[in-house]
């Protein structure tokens, strides 16, 4: 299979829909097929990475601890839009993993340079 740069665009909060969980699964699968996986978080997608989530409070098993294992899948491109964090009163210190911050224009460029975009 040709090696492709695949960008997974996460714009949804973690529990309101299944989109976030399913996008993470798809990203891990793409990484297992040796693709160059990039994860982008913008809009409410930044809420997926917030520390100290307690899905057990809802009787859910949760999925976001999966972000802690990205390195094991050789996924080391995690991009977060700075404006999206700021609008929600968050900073990178509120996130569970180290990320690279991009401004909106740089995020647009990242999207533009991907071979494939998988958005949710």
């Amino acid at each position, binding site marked *: 299979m040709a090696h492709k740069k695949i960008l997974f665009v996460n714009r949804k909060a973690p529990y309101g829909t299944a989109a976030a969980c399913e996008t993470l699964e798809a990203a891990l699968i793409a990484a297992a097929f040796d693709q160059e996986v990039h994860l982008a978080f913008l809009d*409410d997608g930044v809420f997926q990475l*917030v520390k*100290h989530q307690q899905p057990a409070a809802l009787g859910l098993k949760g999925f976001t601890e999966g972000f802690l294992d990205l390195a094991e899948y050789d996924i080391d491109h995690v991009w977060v839009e700075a404006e999206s964090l700021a609008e929600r009163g968050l900073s990178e210190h509120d996130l569970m993993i180290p990320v690279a911050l991009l401004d909106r224009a740089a995020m647009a460029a990242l999207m533009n340079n991907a071979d494939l975009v998988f958005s949710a």
Partner: protein
Amino acid sequence: MSMLHTVNKSPFASPTLASCLAHAVDGAAVLLIEDGVYAALAAGSFAPTLAAEARRLRLYVLAPDLAARGFADAALVAGVKMVDYEGFVDLAAAHSVVQAWF
């Protein structure tokens, strides 16, 4: 007896809460649930809107939904009260009409 409104959408992703607030009459109760709880974060950009509404509405947020999302200990907009599931039931029982905004 006044109304209870429930809102389950993030204010950053949907105009649902804004529409609810535009239709809630003075003295009504608004309970933020599921992704609606993001509106209650004091540091977020929706906070000034909600703080202004707290002067004429009774505002509540469902604690387990905050905790699930990582905000169990987060600062909330002044005037917003946390309730648990029992509190949700009490609110529903205390109001003659419940409207779900989703």
